[in-house]
C-alpha cells in the first residue's frame, strides 16, 4: 500500500524530472559528473543509458530538495556558481515541494532509500545526456570523463556568475538551516545544480538568454502552484514518455498538440492539407466539438474517385484506410495488425529515391501513410504505440546496412512486434485469465473483445463449466458477433442489452472486459458502456478483470472521456437497423433539426477504482501498476 501511494504521488514530483532532461547545460554538468562517481554505488544503473528513461520517475529529488534546503543555505559561503535567475527558481520552487513533503511523512525510510538511488540516477542520466547532447551545446567534452579538468573548469567558469540575488535567497531559507546534516547539504547542492542546469538549458534555448533566464523560472513555479495537480501530471507524464537520451529525437517524439476541431483556423489549414473532405462541423454537441468529426460514408465516393491520384499511397495502406473508413475492420488488435501488415507491404515495395537516405525518407513516407490513416479514422493508442515502435526502429537502423538488409530488418521487426506484443501477449493473457475461471462461474463480458473471446474459448477447451453473459449495446451490436462465435463453439451464453445490466449482475461472479487502451493512472479506455458495466459490477461487489495487452498501455493520464475520444456516426443512434418504422426523428423540420444534436461517442474512460485487476502479458497487476509497465515496456522496445 505504501509503495502504491508513492507511485500515486509520483506525478506531482515528476515535475522535476521534466526539468532535468532538458539539460544540454554547460556549467553545472561538470560538477555533476565530478560528484557523480563518488556517490554512484549502483553500477547497473549508472552504466547504461537505459537508466535515462527512468530518471523522471525516480524524482524524489523533490523531497530531498526541500529538506536539504537549509543545508544549501548553510553551504552558502561556498556557492560556486549560479546566476540570479537560477536561484530565484530554486527559492520559489522549493516551498511548494516542501509542502508536498510535509504532507506525506509516511515515506520516511523508503523515501530515503529511493532518494539516494534517485539522485544517483539523476546525475548519471544527466551526464550521459550531456555527452550525447553536447554537440548542440558545443561547450566542453573532456570534463565529462575527467573530474580533474572539471574542477579546473569550474573554477574558471561559474565563479564570475555569482550574484547578490543568491545571498538574498539564502536569507529567505535560513530558518530551515538547523535541521540538515552535512551529507544532506551536499546532496542538496547537487540537486540544485541540476535544477539550475535545466533551467539554464531552457534559457539557452530561448532567443534572449538573459531575459528568459529571469522570466521563465518565475513562470514555472507559478504554474506548478496554480495549475491543478491533474493538469500538471498529465503534462509531466506526457513528457516523461518522451524522455530519451538524444535531445533531437526527444523533440521529434513529442506528440504534437492534438488537433482541436473547434479551432476554426487550424481546421481550415488541415482541410487544405487533407486527402479527404473534412465534413463540416454541423450540429455537433458543444462539449465535444474539439473531437474530430465522424467521417461517414459520404466520404467514400470521394476517396474512391481519388484512387489513382494518390499514387504515393501504397495500395495496401490505401486498402486498410478504406477498411477503417467503411468500418469493415474494427477492434484495436485487428486494426493494429492490419496497419502493421500494410506497412510491411509498403516497406517491402519501397525503394530509396536517389540522393535520399532510407532512414529519413522512409520515416517521412510512413508519416504520410499514418496521416492518411488518421484521416480515415483516428488512430487508437495501440496503433500509436506501434507506429512509434516502427519509427524508432527505422531511426535506429545502422547506416551501414544495405537497402535490402534494412528492409528485411524492418519487416522482421514488424513481424516480431505482431508476434510478441500481440499474439504471444494474447496467449499469455489467456493463460493467466483462465486460471481465474472456476467451475460454476458466471462470466459477464461486454461488447466484443478478442482477448476475452480467446479466454472464454480456452477455458471451455480446458473443460471448465461456466456460463457466459454477453452484454451488448446499440448501435454497434458487436456482442452479437461474439455471441455467434461462442455459441458455435458450444458455450452456453446469455445475451442481454446494457440497460439490463443491473438485473443480470446479481448472477455474475466475474466480469471480463477488454480495453482499447489503459492510461498511466489506471483509467481504462474502452468501448463506450464499459464504464457502466464496471461501475455496476463494483457496486455489486463483483470482481472486474480487464484484459489488455501491454502494448496498449499509454503514458498519458486521462480522467474523463471528454478530452480525448472518438465520435461515431451521429445518425447511427437515431436509426434502428431493420426497423424502418422507428423513424421518429426522421421527419423533423429544418428548424427542429438545428436544435437537435446527436452524440455518438465511441469510447469511455473507466476510473481505476472500479477495476479489480488488469490481466496483461506481464501478469495480473493492479491498475496502479500501469505506469511501471509503461516505463519498463517503453524501455524495452525503444532501447533494444
Amino acid at each position, binding site marked *: 500500500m505504501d509503495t502504491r501511494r508513492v507511485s500515486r504521488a509520483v506525478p506531482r514530483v515528476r515535475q522535476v524530472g521534466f526539468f532535468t532532461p532538458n539539460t544540454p547545460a554547460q556549467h553545472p554538468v561538470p560538477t555533476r559528473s565530478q560528484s557523480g562517481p563518488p556517490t554512484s554505488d549502483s553500477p547497473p544503473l549508472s552504466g547504461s543509458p537505459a537508466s535515462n528513461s527512468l530518471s523522471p520517475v525516480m524524482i524524489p529529488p523533490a523531497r530531498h530538495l526541500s529538506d536539504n534546503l537549509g543545508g544549501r543555505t548553510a553551504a552558502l559561503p561556498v556557492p560556486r556558481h549560479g546566476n540570479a535567475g537560477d536561484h530565484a527558481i530554486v527559492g520559489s520552487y522549493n516551498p511548494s515541494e516542501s509542502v508536498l513533503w510535509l504532507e506525506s511523512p509516511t515515506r520516511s525510510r523508503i523515501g530515503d532509500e529511493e532518494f539516494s538511488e534517485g539522485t544517483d540516477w539523476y546525475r548519471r542520466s544527466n551526464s550521459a545526456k550531456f555527452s550525447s547532447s553536447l554537440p548542440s551545446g558545443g561547450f566542453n567534452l573532456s570534463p565529462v570523463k575527467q573530474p580533474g579538468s572539471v574542477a579546473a573548469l569550474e573554477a574558471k567558469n561559474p565563479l564570475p556568475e555569482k550574484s547578490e540575488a543568491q545571498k538574498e535567497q539564502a536569507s529567505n531559507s535560513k530558518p530551515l538551516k538547523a535541521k540538515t546534516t552535512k551529507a544532506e547539504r551536499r546532496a542538496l547542492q547537487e540537486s540544485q545544480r541540476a535544477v539550475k542546469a535545466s533551467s539554464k538549458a531552457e534559457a539557452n534555448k530561448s532567443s534572449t538568454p538573459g531575459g528568459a533566464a529571469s522570466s521563465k523560472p518565475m513562470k514555472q513555479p507559478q504554474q506548478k502552484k496554480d495549475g491543478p495537480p491533474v493538469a500538471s501530471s498529465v503534462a509531466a507524464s506526457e513528457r516523461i514518455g518522451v524522455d530519451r537520451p538524444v535531445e533531437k529525437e526527444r523533440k521529434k517524439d513529442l506528440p504534437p498538440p492534438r488537433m482541436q476541431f473547434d479551432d476554426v483556423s487550424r481546421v481550415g489549414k488541415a482541410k487544405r492539407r487533407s486527402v479527404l473532405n473534412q465534413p463540416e462541423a454541423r450540429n455537433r454537441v458543444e462539449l465535444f466539438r474539439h473531437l474530430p468529426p465522424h467521417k461517414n460514408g459520404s466520404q467514400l465516393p470521394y476517396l474512391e474517385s481519388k*484512387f*489513382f491520384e*494518390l499514387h504515393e499511397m501504397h*495500395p495496401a495502406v490505401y486498402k486498410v484506410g*478504406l477498411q477503417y473508413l*467503411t468500418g469493415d475492420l474494427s477492434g484495436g488488435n485487428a486494426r493494429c495488425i492490419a496497419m502493421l501488415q500494410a506497412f510491411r507491404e509498403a516497406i517491402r515495395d519501397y525503394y530509396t529515391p536517389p540522393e535520399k537516405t532510407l532512414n529519413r525518407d522512409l520515416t517521412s513516407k510512413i508519416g504520410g501513410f499514418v496521416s492518411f490513416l488518421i484521416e480515415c479514422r483516428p488512430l487508437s493508442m495501440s496503433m500509436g504505440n506501434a507506429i512509434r515502435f516502427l519509427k524508432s526502429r527505422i531511426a535506429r537502423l545502422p547506416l551501414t546496412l544495405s537497402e535490402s538488409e534494412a528492409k528485411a530488418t524492418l519487416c522482421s521487426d514488424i513481424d516480431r512486434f505482431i*508476434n510478441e506484443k500481440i499474439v504471444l501477449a494474447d496467449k499469455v493473457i489467456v493463460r493467466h485469465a483462465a486460471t481465474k475461471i472456476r467451475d460454476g462461474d458466471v462470466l459477464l463480458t461486454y461488447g466484443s473483445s478478442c482477448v476475452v473471446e480467446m479466454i472464454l474459448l480456452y477455458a471451455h477447451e480446458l473443460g471448465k463449466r461456466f456460463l457466459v453473459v454477453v452484454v451488448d449495446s446499440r448501435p454497434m451490436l458487436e456482442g452479437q458477433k461474439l455471441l455467434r462465435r461462442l455459441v458455435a463453439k458450444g458455450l452456453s451464453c446469455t445475451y442481454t442489452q446494457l440497460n439490463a445490466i443491473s438485473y443480470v449482475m446479481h448472477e455474475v461472479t466475474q466480469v471480463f472486459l477488454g480495453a482499447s487502451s489503459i492510461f498511466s493512472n489506471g483509467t481504462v479506455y474502452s468501448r463506450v458502456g464499459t464504464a457502466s458495466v464496471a461501475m455496476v459490477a463494483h457496486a455489486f461487489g463483483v470482481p472486474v478483470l480487464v484484459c489488455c495487452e501491454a502494448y496498449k498501455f499509454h503514458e498519458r493520464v486521462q480522467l474523463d472521456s471528454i478530452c480525448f475520444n472518438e465520435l461515431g456516426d451521429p445518425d447511427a443512434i437515431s436509426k434502428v437497423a431493420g426497423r424502418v418504422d422507428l423513424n421518429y426523428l426522421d421527419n423533423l423540420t429544418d428548424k427542429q433539426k438545428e436544435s437537435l444534436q446527436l452524440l455518438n461517442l465511441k469510447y469511455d474512460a473507466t476510473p481505476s477504482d472500479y477495476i479489480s485487476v488488469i490481466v496483461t502479458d506481464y501478469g495480473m497487476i493492479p491498475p496502479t501498476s500501469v505506469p511501471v509497465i509503461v516505463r519498463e515496456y517503453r524501455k524495452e522496445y525503444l532501447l533494444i
Partner: protein
Amino acid sequence: MDFQVVVLAGGSSKNLTPLVSKELPKPLLPVANRPVLTYVLHQLEQSNLKDLIVVVEGEDAALVVGAWISGTFIDRLHVEIAAVPEDIGTAGAIREISHHLTTKDILVVSGDLVSDVPPGAVAATHRRHDAAVTATLCSIPVSGPLESGSSVGKDKAKKLGRYNIIGLDPGKQFLLHIATGAEIEKDARLPKRILRAVGQMEIRSDLMDAHMYAFKRSVLQEVLELKDAFQSLKEDVLPYLVRSQLKSEALSNRTPQGEENGNEKVTSLNNQVFVSRILANASIPSFHDRSSETPDGSAPTRKTHKCCAYIASSSSYCVRLNSIQAFMDINRDVTGEADHLLSGTDPNNNIGPSPKLGTKTTVGPHSMLGEGSEVGDKCQVKRSVIGRHCRIGSHVKVVNSVVMNHVTIGDGCIIQGSVVCSNVQLQDRVVLKDCQVGAGFVVTAGSEYKAESLARKEK
C-alpha cells in the same frame, strides 16, 4: 496503384454499319465532333492513369487508331496499341494480350463507353473487398429522342431484347446473379448455394453492365485458360465467375494468401493462423465467409471468391455506344445535359475558323457546329451536331441529326433523326428521315428516304 488498364476499343462493329467503315473504325466514330475513344482516354487521364493498353480489332484499324492516339495524346499518355484478329470477342482479345498483363489487378474498360464514372471508384471497391471481379453497373439510360418521340425502328426490336437481370445482396455490394441480352429468353438459373448463403437477394432490371471491370489478374488469366470457348467478358466470363463464386474452381482469394504464408519463414504458421483469425473476427463477414465455414466454426474449407458490383450513382452519366440509337442518344446528351463530359476533352477543337452562318439562320440549343462549316441562309439547326468543313445550302432543316465532316448539303434539304457520314453529298431537296447515310455516298437531288440505310456499294 498497381493497376493495368486495358481499353477494348473494338474495330468495325456490325451494329453500327453503315456508320463505321475500314477508314473510320468504331473507336474513331465522332461523337460531338470528337472520336468516341477520346472520352474514355480523357476519363482515364483525369484519373491519373497514363499507361494504357488499347486493344483494337484488325491490323488496319489498329494503324488508324494508333496514328490518331499518337497524334492527339502524344505528350500526355503512354499508350500501347495491340492489334488482335477480328471476331475473337472481348475475352479472346484479353487472351491475346494476356502475356502483357503483369500487375495484380486489371481494369478493363470498353472503348465505346461515354461516362463520367470514375475508374478509381471501381478500383477502390475492388481493392476494398479483395474481389476477383468488380463490375460497374449503371442505370439504363433513357433511350430515344424524347423530344421528337420517334426512334429508329430497326433498333426498337433490338432494344426490347436487351434486358439485364442483376441480382445483388442486401448491402448492394456483391453481385449474385447476372444475365444479359440473349440469355434472358431462357429460364434464369440461380445456384441454390448462393441463395442459401445470402438469404436475401435483390433482383433488379434497371441496372446495366457498363463494361468497366476490375479483374484480379490471376483469376482472369486462369479462367481464360481453362475455358477456351469463352468469347465475351460480359456474356461468358462474368456470369461464370458470378455463378461459381462459392465453389471457386478457378483461383480463389485464398491462394495468393497461401503463397504469402509460404514465404513467411520468420513466423510460424500457427501465429499466422492466429493473426488471421483476429483479423477475420474483427471484420464484418461477407456471406462468402459465412457460407464457407463449416458449422462448427472451424477454418473455412471451401474456396470462394468475391464478385463485387460498383453501382454508379444515378446522377452520373454512363452510356455505351453500341448501336445507332445509342450513337444518336450520346450525341444528343453530350451536347445537352451531359456537356460536362466535353469540358477539357480537347481544347484544340475550339480553335480554327468559327462556323459561318447565313442570314436568318437559327441554331437551336443542344446543337454544335464544327469549325469551318458554312451554313446558308434561312436554315434551321435543332438538337444536331454538324461536323467540320460542312457546306450547307439555304433553306435546309436539320433536326435531331448528326452530320459528320466534309458533308455537302444542297438547298432545301430536310434531315430528321438521321446520321450523315463524312464526305456525303446531298443534292438539292433531299428529304431524309431516320436514315443512315454511309461515308462518301451521294444522294441524288429530290430523293426521299425514310428509315433506310444508305451506303456505297463495296467495290
